[in-house]
């Protein structure tokens, strides 16, 4: 080996080196752009929305910059608005439950029963998530319409003599379409937690005399709980805030969905403070639900540190979804 030595590195400090030794300055520099941007374009807008909800509209259709609870009062005393929120919540609940029922078996199948091409199959299930939301909602218009495919097929099979009216332009169409759209979304976190269950756990359970059903109930289900919670929360929250599907497929029922109300209040029915108030109520509901879900997930998270890392990954993967 060559014995020639190399000169020592230059030991003079540059300004960059000095900066490295001052952690507070480094943090400030690193935080400037992201924190600044988020403050201006996220924090301030949400804040402004909140502030708008405390203003009101006067007789001349001008927004009065005066602190008042008038908009909220109007919201809670006029029957329409609470009814709307409740109606949207009920629809969201139906969508969530249906999605769970559909997603869980498929997730279970993919996680435990598919051997080869597991990644490929999982990708195949996920791909529709990124295909245009509008396309997926629109597809149901074709399927459920009076002259649509479902009616046509049923008629051809002789099962019905008249096209089913209630399918399209009703809350059923909305529920079916939203279920279709959000099932893959619900599936992702469930698949993630199921996948993370080491096969040795199932084997240990069976070694200790538990049958397949008992193993499922006592071992698999509790461990899958965080994923189920994550999936259902997102399905619920996003269904509640959806406005494309109701407008396309909801018919008269669509007027009762919260998001449509907000859209009209910021558009045709011009009342920004009221619209802001409704948005804030929806926001509060969503944040509350998410916090509860988070707490529950932490309580039922038996996997400790690795479980938490799992959730971040699932979140990173799951929460990049297109929706209205």
């Amino acid at each position, binding site marked *: 080996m060559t014995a020639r030595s190399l000169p020592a590195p230059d030991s003079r400090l540059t300004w960059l080196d000095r900066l490295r030794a001052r952690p507070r300055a480094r943090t400030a520099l690193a935080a400037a752009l992201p924190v600044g941007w988020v403050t201006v374009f996220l924090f301030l807008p949400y804040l402004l929305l909140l502030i708008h909800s405390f203003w009101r509209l006067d007789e001349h259709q001008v927004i009065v910059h005066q602190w008042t609870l008038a908009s909220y009062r109007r919201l809670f005393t006029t029957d329409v608005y609470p009814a709307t929120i409740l109606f949207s919540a009920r629809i969201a609940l139906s969508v969530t439950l249906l999605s769970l029922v559909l997603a869980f078996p498929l997730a279970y199948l993919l996680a435990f029963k598919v051997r080869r091409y597991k990644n490929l199959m999982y990708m195949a299930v996920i791909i*529709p998530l990124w295909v245009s*939301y509008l396309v997926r909602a629109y597809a149901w218009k074709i399927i459920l319409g009076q002259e649509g495919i479902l009616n046509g097929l049923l008629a051809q099979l002789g099962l019905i003599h008249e096209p089913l009216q209630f399918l399209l332009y009703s809350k059923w169409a909305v529920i079916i379409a939203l279920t279709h759209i959000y099932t893959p979304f619900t599936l992702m976190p469930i698949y993630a937690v199921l996948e993370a269950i080491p096969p040795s756990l199932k084997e240990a359970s069976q070694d200790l005399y538990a049958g397949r059903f008992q193993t499922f109930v006592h071992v698999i289900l509790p461990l899958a709980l965080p994923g189920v919670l994550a999936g259902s929360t997102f399905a619920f929250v996003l269904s509640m805030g959806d406005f494309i599907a109701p407008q396309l497929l909801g018919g008269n029922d669509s007027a009762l969905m919260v998001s449509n109300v907000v859209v009209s209040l910021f558009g045709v029915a011009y009342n920004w403070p009221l619209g802001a108030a409704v948005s804030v109520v929806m926001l509060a509901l969503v944040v509350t639900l998410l916090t509860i879900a988070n707490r529950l997930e932490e309580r039922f998270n038996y996997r400790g540190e690795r479980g938490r890392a799992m959730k971040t990954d699932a979140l990173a993967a799951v929460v990049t979804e297109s929706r209205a």
Partner: protein
Amino acid sequence: MTTSRTGRGDWLSRGLWLAGIAVFVFIYAPLLVVVLYSFHDSRIIAWPLHLGTLSWYGVLWHDRGMVDAVVASLKLALLAVVIALGIGVPGAFLLDRYEFPGKALFQRLVLLPLILPGIITGVSLLTFFTFIGLPLSAGFPYVPGWPVVLGHGTALVSVVVTQVFARLQRLDRFQEEASMDLYADAWLTFWHVTLPNIRTAMLGAALLVFTLSLDEIAVTFFLIGRQNTIPLQIWGLLRRGITPEVNAISTIIFLVSVVVIVIWARLMHDPQGARA
């Protein structure tokens, strides 16, 4: 894995497979319907289906409004990618490596646009831009207005942050120490060691932002100026009544999305050590 040979076990297993396949079909069938009907030879979309024409794609090609919308959407998506990467990558590094007061709040805020229904973000940004007096059409010619560009970029920053953050968390810290041990200062270390390891995550995030921006409706609805984007254009067509032209553009979007996502998936499984 133990296989139960009892009749009941098989029945359960078979039931599970059937259920799974049924759900899979449920997920894909409607998309297939849209694609098939883009070749339907009648103006009216009804059963039964008659395949056999490409004319709707022709109509699409000559639809001036739609072509403009496509161009506008592409420009908007590219700008959104630039903003989302420019803010998101520093944001991911900030979350991964630094502690500061208010970090939890910052983390929450960054994720909000992804978690909340889009209309809330859209409405908030609308009130913001109105409040500061920036008109929706403000901006350079031939480019979508500032509000919608900033809105898209901001709403999609979270995508970049989550993707790059997840990758950063997986990086071996010792590699960066090794690099510094080998006479590379902070900048050289970032360039030669950190960046190559997060490159695919950044690319993947960029692809996702691009795709999501093309399909973005809620925020765009409130912030768009005079131009239309593809989803808004389709929306307009739908209000006028369904024609298979909508199926045609939908099919194209579907195919483009699939291609982009497949590329993204390949990137995420890069064999260069840091596996997603």
